[in-house]
């Protein structure tokens, strides 16, 4: 067992940064806040690497199985004897891997932002938010309790919200951050209800106990969860499916993906960190965390995960082919790649060779973090240089941005699955796992991988080749403002990530991460790789044919596929459907009537009571007319009435 203190420091240091910069940043650390943030994160990264080294090579393995260690646990909120929210740290292969990924990418982004955000008015706030996000994400990956994960889940959501809305005076950014928060929030309700279901049946919120209870058929919890059913589906499946809804929301799975492209309104380094490498894979992480329960107790839920992942991967890839905003292309590409990870989990089984998909998914998560962060940071460098997100404003930039160009190319090759870059290895494993377990998903994945190569190189050629540079068109007007690629602080992360993207594939991932903690030896099947690699290369060549030089082929092809192209260009109208549902149905058919009902019916009733009382008293007032004779008549009537009452009724 490690000494937990230093592991706890990994998330706590960014939190300290957040508090320090958030409260005092504007006054005292106007210019130094970036350095402070980056320095704190550097310590975290070193600690994370140290933890990883210790875990994987020193104490983590007992009898050939990686253990789940809980070195720290503190009761945060006790509900009943067994059920409590604990703040704890769980150390297992996945969380350690995530620690490394998150700290590393976050560090890269911190350093990169020193250049990218330089001179921004709210520089300290930016770093404070980054610190908050890093803290939340690290807290999320080490959560030992399902409610703890929910807590940090919400926190990453809010830091994502804050960072997307960082340029808060831009209406589109404000709309995007709102959208991101609400869509993921909607998914989180599913997660929450899922937690409630799982916690109720297992009688605990602690991950380890929960997994043990719900995977052993002899426990009471398992029996009750499997027996209780709602609409013909067992409570266990419901719970897992709802938890997955939460994961799907955060991971931008179809149909909850609509927030991700809009989220690109945030600063580009933020997109790299949150919306490419770390936060959006939280959904994958969540499914991986609960993987034994999915795989052993509810294969149906797992199959659903697989199909949702596959469909998302395909749809996102198709849409990505038509987008012109480079960040949006990357966003859809992210969605597509996360779809890969999801269906890899979906086709996996628990234990041994059958668990290949699990390993592959984690592997892809790891490599994807490297190359996707790299792509975003590269795109950031381009945007920083050009001041535009649109492809049509770019072209021929390879001369002006040589480092960016090379690193971007490496990332593109990696994501396209060209050997020997990182993406190739992880993708091959995923395809293999899919091939072995689910043919339909395998074919979808294969097509997607071809599309991936195509749209990535469409992007690449459009930025760095194609038409003459807009700088020449603009008459070199912007030259004076810029000093090339943004200097060392922006280039260093690119290079480091490029190294990762190129070399990460050689890590024998199965040795470290597998569904049951035992070592998994992955074999490399040459003949199997032929198809995907060939498809990938074909995609690249088509992209090159279409976009390397300026020509009218893209327009022709777009015209020949007009309806499909149009639909894809409009993202299959999913946004419009959502707008319709929210505006027309929720606002107009629920909200407005509710407000109307309250104002007129409920409040009307109350006012009617008041007015009724007033009217009655008004008419009673008339009786007190001051006319003696009227009084006498009332008196007589009263006497006669009372007399009748006493004579005929009372006796």
């Amino acid at each position, binding site marked *: 067992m490690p000494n937990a203190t230093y592991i706890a420091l990994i998330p706590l240091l960014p939190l300290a940064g957040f508090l320090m910069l958030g409260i005092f940043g504007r006054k005292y650390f106007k210019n130094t806040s970036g350095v402070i943030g980056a320095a704190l994160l550097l310590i975290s990264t070193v600690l994370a690497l140290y933890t990883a080294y210790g875990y994987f090579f020193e104490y983590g393995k007992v009898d050939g199985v990686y253990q789940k260690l809980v070195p720290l646990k503190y009761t945060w909120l006790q509900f009943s004897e067994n059920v409590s929210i604990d703040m704890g740290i769980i150390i297992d292969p996945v969380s350690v891997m995530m620690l490394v990924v998150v700290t590393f990418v976050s560090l890269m982004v911190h350093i990169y932002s020193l250049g990218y955000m330089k001179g921004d008015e709210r520089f300290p706030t930016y770093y404070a938010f980054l610190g908050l996000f890093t803290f939340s994400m690290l807290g999320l990956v080490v959560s030992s309790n399902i409610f703890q994960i929910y807590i940090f889940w919400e926190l990453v959501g809010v830091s994502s919200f804050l960072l997307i809305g960082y340029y808060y005076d831009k209406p589109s950014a404000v709309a995007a951050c709102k959208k991101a928060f609400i869509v993921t929030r909607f998914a989180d309700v599913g997660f929450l209800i899922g937690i409630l279901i799982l916690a109720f049946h297992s009688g605990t919120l602690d991950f380890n106990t929960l997994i043990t209870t719900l995977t052993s058929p002899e426990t009471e919890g398992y029996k009750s969860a499997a027996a209780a059913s709602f609409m013909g589906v067992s409570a266990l499946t419901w719970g897992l499916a709802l938890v997955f809804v939460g994961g799907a929301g955060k991971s931008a799975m179809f149909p909850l993906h609509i927030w991700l492209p809009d989220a690109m309104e945030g600063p580009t380094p933020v997109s790299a960190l949150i919306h490419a490498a770390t936060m959006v894979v939280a959904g994958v992480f969540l499914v991986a965390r609960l993987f034994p329960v999915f795989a052993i107790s509810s294969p149906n839920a797992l199959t659903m995960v697989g199909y949702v992942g596959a469909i998302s991967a395909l749809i996102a890839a198709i849409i990505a082919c038509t987008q012109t905003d480079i960040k949006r292309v990357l966003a859809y590409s992210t969605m597509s790649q996360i779809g890969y990870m999801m269906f890899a989990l979906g086709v996996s089984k628990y234990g041994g060779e059958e668990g290949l998909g699990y390993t592959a998914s984690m592997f892809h998560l790891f490599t994807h973090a490297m190359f996707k962060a790299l792509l975003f940071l590269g795109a950031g460098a381009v945007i920083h240089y050009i001041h535009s997100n649109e492809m049509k404003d770019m072209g021929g930039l390879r001369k002006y941005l040589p480092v960016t160009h090379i690193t971007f190319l490496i990332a593109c090759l990696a994501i396209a699955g060209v050997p020997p870059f990182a993406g190739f290895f992880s993708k091959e494993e995923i395809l293999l796992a899919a091939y072995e377990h689910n043919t339909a998903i395998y074919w979808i994945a294969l097509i997607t991988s071809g599309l991936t190569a195509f749209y990535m190189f469409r992007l690449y050629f459009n930025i760095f080749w194609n038409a003459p540079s807009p700088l020449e068109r603009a008459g070199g007007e912007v030259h004076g403002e810029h000093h090339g690629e943004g200097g060392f602080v922006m280039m260093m992360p690119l290079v480091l990530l490029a190294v990762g993207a190129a070399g990460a594939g050689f890590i024998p991932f199965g040795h470290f991460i597998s569904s049951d903690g035992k070592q998994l030896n992955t074999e490399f099947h040459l003949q199997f790789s032929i198809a995907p690699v060939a498809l990938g290369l074909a995609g690249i060549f088509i992209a090159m044919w279409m976009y390397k030089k300026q020509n009218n082929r893209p327009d022709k092809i777009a015209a020949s596929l007009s309806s499909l192209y149009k639909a894809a260009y409009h993202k299959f109208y999913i946004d419009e459907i959502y707008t319709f549902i929210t505006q027309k149905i929720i606002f107009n058919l629920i909200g407005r009537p509710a407000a109307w009902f309250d104002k007129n019916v409920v409040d009307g009733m109350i006012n009617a009571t008041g007015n009724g009382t007033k009217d009655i008293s008004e008419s009673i007032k008339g009786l007190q007319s001051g006319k003696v*004779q009227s009084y006498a*008549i009332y008196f*007589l*009537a009263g*006497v*006669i009435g009372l*007399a*009748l009452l006493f*004579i005929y009724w009372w006796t």
Partner: protein
Amino acid sequence: MSGANIIFYLLAAITLVSAVLAVTTRMIFRAAIYLLFCLIGIAGIYFWLQYEFIAAVQIVVYVGGIVVLIIFSIFLTQQAGEELPKQKMGRQLFSALAAFCGMALVMLQLVQHKFTTTANKAVEPTVSNIGNQMLGVEEGGYSLPFEVVSILLLAALIGCIVIALKSKPEAK
């Protein structure tokens, strides 16, 4: 049918008819005169019942006092001979109905009720008997109510003067 009976019915008729006329006539002075007849009729009934003292008091106080007072007040407040304003028809009908219903109710009760009478020896209501008991202080004596009524009369006297006093003009 004896003469006494005839006299009773006669008195009763005078009383009721003049009472009705007193409340229905439109001439206020005539109303006062009808009231006078009605009161005299009641005094007659007291005579008929052989309660002479009460009859005398009735004539002295009512006929001689109150009716005269009323007539004076009519002179003070009203031009004689002027017709009284007519009450609304609805009010008249309603009042008649109410009075009739009330009367019917009371009569119904009276008819249904069986009165029991005492078997003791009768006491003659002579003036001396009345005087003895009125001022008697032994059991059954009425001296205390008598005093109280005297004080009440005194108070009424003073009260009348206070009310009827012309209020002095405020501003001086």
